[in-house]
């Protein structure tokens, strides 16, 4: 359990670093961001592996959202959008998990600081081959949310209340993470989190970020970590290749969609 908390903390810190690198003088440092993403990936693997070893097994193993549910049980808040998106995803891809919305955000967050890793290419986890997120990118600007989320560094990791409140939210229809997050947030008790400067000019986003919690960040991180297919191939895991192949197409689509939504600054990075 301690590993999971530690992994989660490291993931939050890593995302914060990636976000801060955007505003650093001299432009994005490719080397440092690459290293941070490696740490993020390692932490994520530990985090997820801890879930599975924690015996929080979901009976609905046939659902694509298997991994997602496991994470949910730990989360204080679960964006209902993901559920919906998952179902929508099913129509698009047969074996994609419902971690769509957070993927967007993770991707956004990821793309902004480091455009080279802009696509949420599904990362194959040894535990769950279907955990790859649906790479549907919302056309709405979920980026500010992503930024907000990354700024949050919640220290609490679990809250059972959300798990319960989540249930009725599953039926919410949601196409964007932002909307879903809003809906879920209103039902959540405020969570303890570390104070982070919020720089967004969007007032509603500020409200959202106020209510952000570990769950969203964790989801975000989960998806975020799947974006580096290159890092996966670094492991040379053959089993991963298959999942990657099937997802590479969607990853590419997602990337393209993502690129369209990038603000000029990020576009500059992509060009970089």
């Amino acid at each position, binding site marked *: 359990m301690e590993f999971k908390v530690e992994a989660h903390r490291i993931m939050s810190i890593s995302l914060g670093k990636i976000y801060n690198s955007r505003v650093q003088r001299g*432009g994005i440092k490719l*080397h440092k961001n690459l*290293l941070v993403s*490696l*740490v993020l990936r390692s932490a994520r693997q530990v985090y997820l592996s801890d879930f599975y070893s924690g015996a929080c097994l979901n009976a609905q193993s046939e659902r694509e959202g298997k991994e997602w549910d496991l994470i949910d049980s730990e989360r204080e808040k679960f964006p209902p959008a993901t559920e919906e998106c998952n179902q929508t995803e099913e129509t698009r891809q047969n074996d994609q998990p419902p971690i769509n919305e957070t993927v967007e955000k993770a991707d956004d967050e990821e793309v902004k600081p480091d455009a080279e*890793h802009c696509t949420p290419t599904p990362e194959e986890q040894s535990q769950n081959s279907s955990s790859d997120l649906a790479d549907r990118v919302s056309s709405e600007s979920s980026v500010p949310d992503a930024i907000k989320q990354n700024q949050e560094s919640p220290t609490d990791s679990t809250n059972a209340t959300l798990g319960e409140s989540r249930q009725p939210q599953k039926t919410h229809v949601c196409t964007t993470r932002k909307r879903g997050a809003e809906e879920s947030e209103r039902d959540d008790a405020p969570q303890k989190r570390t104070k982070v400067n919020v720089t967004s000019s969007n007032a509603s986003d500020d409200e959202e970020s106020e209510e952000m919690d570990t769950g969203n960040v964790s989801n975000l991180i989960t998806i975020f970590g799947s*974006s580096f297919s290159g890092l996966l191939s670094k492991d040379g895991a053959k089993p991963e290749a298959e999942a990657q192949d099937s997802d590479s197409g969607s990853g590419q689509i997602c990337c393209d969609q993502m690129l369209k939504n990038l603000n000029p600054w990020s576009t500059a990075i992509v060009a970089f």
Partner: protein
Amino acid sequence: MAGVGGGNDFQWCFSQVKGAIDEDVAEADIISTVEFNYSGELLATGDKGGRVVIFQREQESKNRSLSRGEYNVYSTFQSHEPEFDYLKSLEIEEKINKIRWLPQQNAAHFLLSTNDKTIKLWKISERDKRAEGYNLKDEDGRLRDPFRITSLRVPVLMPMDLMVEASPRRIFANAHTYHINSISVNSDYQTYLSADDLRINLWHLEITDRSFNIVDIKPANMEELTEVITAAECHPHQCNVFVYSSSKGTIRLCDMRAAALCDRHSKFFEEPEDPSSRSFFSEIISSISDVKFSHSGRYMMTRDYLSVKVWDLNMENRPVETYQVHEYLRSKLCSLYENDCIFDKFECCWNGSDSAIMTGSYNNFFRMFDRNTRRDITLEASRENSKPRAMLKPRKVCTGGKRKKDEISVDSLDFNKKILHTAWHPKENVIAVAATNNLYIFQDKMN
């Protein structure tokens, strides 16, 4: 007492310190590179403000034979200015990443200095004479009335106060998309290489409008990026050979005779990872921050976060020597990750005879390893030990248990005081250590 660097009676002593004493250090004054020239007569430093300061060693006076000449400021100039890339909306820092001297071929001195994007060749020349007695103009430069000129006089060279001028002779720009981390002058003294995160270019010193790309590790799909180039250096004798290190802890040696594009290495140096020491940060601490050939060209040294490794160019599967710099930090990696110290890029250097190596650490400590005796020593660059010719006392970090007197515990280390840049005189036991905004010069004490 026995020291490191040569001989049993060796002892390092304080010689000089340059820089302000203020507690508040301006970011622009932080030294970012230190380099002796080929003779050791000149010592160049670059800082984050884009300035280069060159110190020159004064001639040894015959009276004080025990102390060698001191280094005094010879020239100061602004090498790089902050720039703005309008196309990408990015600011380009003026910080000097590296300075490399060219061998001296005439009275002037030449050096290459680089920031993230642009390399400049500077000529530093002395002027100690001035022409006086012009025929057509007055001493203050005003033209004389032609009708008043009744006789012819020829200008005469008169001595004047020494003036050192630095002028940019070449500007090598627009060749790097990513941040330049290394430059290295080739042994042919006609070409040099520059390396950024993903590419290495080969330049001719006379030609600024084009360069050859000799290494390109940028993947077609940037999502597949797994490693970046962290340092590169030309072989000291073989002008066709160079090496580059990566963020994965590997070093590739390339031969430019093999192909125009040296994407395929000739030799690949990698030490297998110890699986028992895996952690979240294993990849970060294995990233190589500096690579340096020995003067002999037989060995090369690499610096990663916790250790220095000496490699024999003839053996690729593991280093021949490994020295732990600050192993006590291994249990603190998470904190060091949080405060960004884990990303610090320490450099390393050889002494002139390749018998000793030196690298920096935190708390203004720096470490020296004697390759022959296997002795190591930790010294500190601090104002407290700044009396002339004061002997440096070895420092020790207490790793646990009872702290002995004079030891410092790991938790007391000041991680803001880091020594990233050090240089060793090519011929003598004189070292330059950059501690934030101060430059310390130490030398041996002859017994």
